[in-house]
């Protein structure tokens, strides 16, 4: 198992791990005859930024629902922190609640509104607190969704392809925002994405999920901002695990090879 997890390019010994906030041991799930998660093992340390790559149908969604405790509990060895929050690809704001009410959803106590306003301020949405969600742009809606997750001060923050539906410029701004927020609040963060570049730019550790198993795991030890040197090889490795063999080619040259 551990052999399969190591990539031939970067063999890095695990640092002495702190008690993980998330621990899945041999977790399996099947719908009918279809095995979606196949004895999956996963640990996430406190404050760790993990990116999860996987093709469609690799089990990403099911894994995320398991981590969000959205599916009915089964007899599995799963340890999750008490406070979790999720940001979905479609922001999933309740259209009949104003933006700040969406952020305050489920919060108890008199300070719900000031807390919601503070979170919205932090994501740069202070000017839209009383707007109806359907009047927000895609980027604004996603900011509100992030504020809604953040206001709970979660130990585990789950991001389910939150930038997939945004245009490239908005996506870059959101990457910076998420990174800044993560650095300030330090939740354990799992980012589910299709985008290899995104994963490499943001995460401490990149996992590749395929057919319900984690088939590759890469740690990025270089600090963010000086990863330019390693991403070329890493991209090739990760893409190969995703079923695309590109060698060292840049994206611009990649399509021709696969034509």
């Amino acid at each position, binding site marked *: 198992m551990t052999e399969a997890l190591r990539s031939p390019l970067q063999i890095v010994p695990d640092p002495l791990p702190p008690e993980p906030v998330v621990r899945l041991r041999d977790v399996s799930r099947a719908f009918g005859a279809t095995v979606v998660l196949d004895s999956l093992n996963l640990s996430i340390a406190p404050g760790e930024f993990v990116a999860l790559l996987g093709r469609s149908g690799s089990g990403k969604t099911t894994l995320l629902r398991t981590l*969000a*405790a*959205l599916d009915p509990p089964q007899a599995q060895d799963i340890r999750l922190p008490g406070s*979790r*929050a*999720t940001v*979905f690809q*479609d922001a*999933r704001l*309740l*259209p*009949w*609640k104003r933006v700040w009410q969406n952020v305050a*959803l*489920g919060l108890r106590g008199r300070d719900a509104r000031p807390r919601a306003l503070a979170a919205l301020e932090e994501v740069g949405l202070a000017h839209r607190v009383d707007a*109806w*969600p*359907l*009047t927000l742009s895609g980027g604004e809606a996603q900011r509100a969704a992030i504020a*809604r997750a953040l206001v*709970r001060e979660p130990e585990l923050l789950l991001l389910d392809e939150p930038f997939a539906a945004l245009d490239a410029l908005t996506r870059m701004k959101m990457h910076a925002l998420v990174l800044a927020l993560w650095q300030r609040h330090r939740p354990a963060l799992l980012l589910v994405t299709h985008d290899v570049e995104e994963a490499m730019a943001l995460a401490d550790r990149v996992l590749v999920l395929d057919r319900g198993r984690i088939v590759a795991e890469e740690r990025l030890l270089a600090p963010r901002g000086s990863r330019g040197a390693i991403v070329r090889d890493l991209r090739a490795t990760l893409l190969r695990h995703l079923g695309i063999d590109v060698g060292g080619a840049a994206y611009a040259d990649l399509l021709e090879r696969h034509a």
Partner: protein
Amino acid sequence: MPLPTHARSTLRRDPLQSRWLSPLLLLLVWEGLCRLGVIPAHTLAAPSSVGSTLAQMIGSGDLPINLAVSLRRAILGLIIGATVGVALALAAGLARRGDAWIDPLVQVKRTIPVVALTPLFIIWFGIGETTKIALIAFAAMLPVYINLHAGIRGVDVRLMDAARSFGLGRAALIREVVLPGALPALLTGLRYALSISVLMLVFAEQINASAGLGYLINNARDAMRTDIIVVCLLVYALLGLTGDALVRAIETRTLAWCPALVEA
């Protein structure tokens, strides 16, 4: 109906395209034919005499008193019907067992035209107010139930998931997600219920009424007073319009978040 601006501006300049024109013309022709004696008063009263009869009926208190009686029937029937419809839809929409128990019964009820139940209702409740109100309530219940039930079932599961992931319990989910999500459907059902209750009012008042608009119409029929009949028809139409406007007003107040209204 919205028109492109250039079309609207020509409309304003061309009085022959006014939407008031044809109804106005109809009234004039109707009046003219009556005055010329082509249409005798016992066939159809002239608009002018309908107008004066209306004023006279309001002055004498005949119309307000009987209108109040009819309104009471319609409103009581509607309130009872809508309440039962909402209660059943909630029970069926929110609990699987409730659905298994209630929905088949409502579907059976749906196949029976309410009007066909009149003889039974008369045997059970007599020919007084109870039968009239029961008929209206029974008819108004169905659209409320069907629309709200569908609305509850149609609430976006992705929103439900999101709300659950933020720790909302069952009661909070129903309060924050299911009911607001089903509100547009409920209001649609209520609008149908309103027009159906006016319809059933007209029908129920044909049954031996001793007061109300139907009573006025029956008396007028015996006396061949077509002017009174037309006045009552106008009032019926007005009832329907008022009810519709009322629900529209509720909609604009409660559905301020809706895309159609938000974009406006």
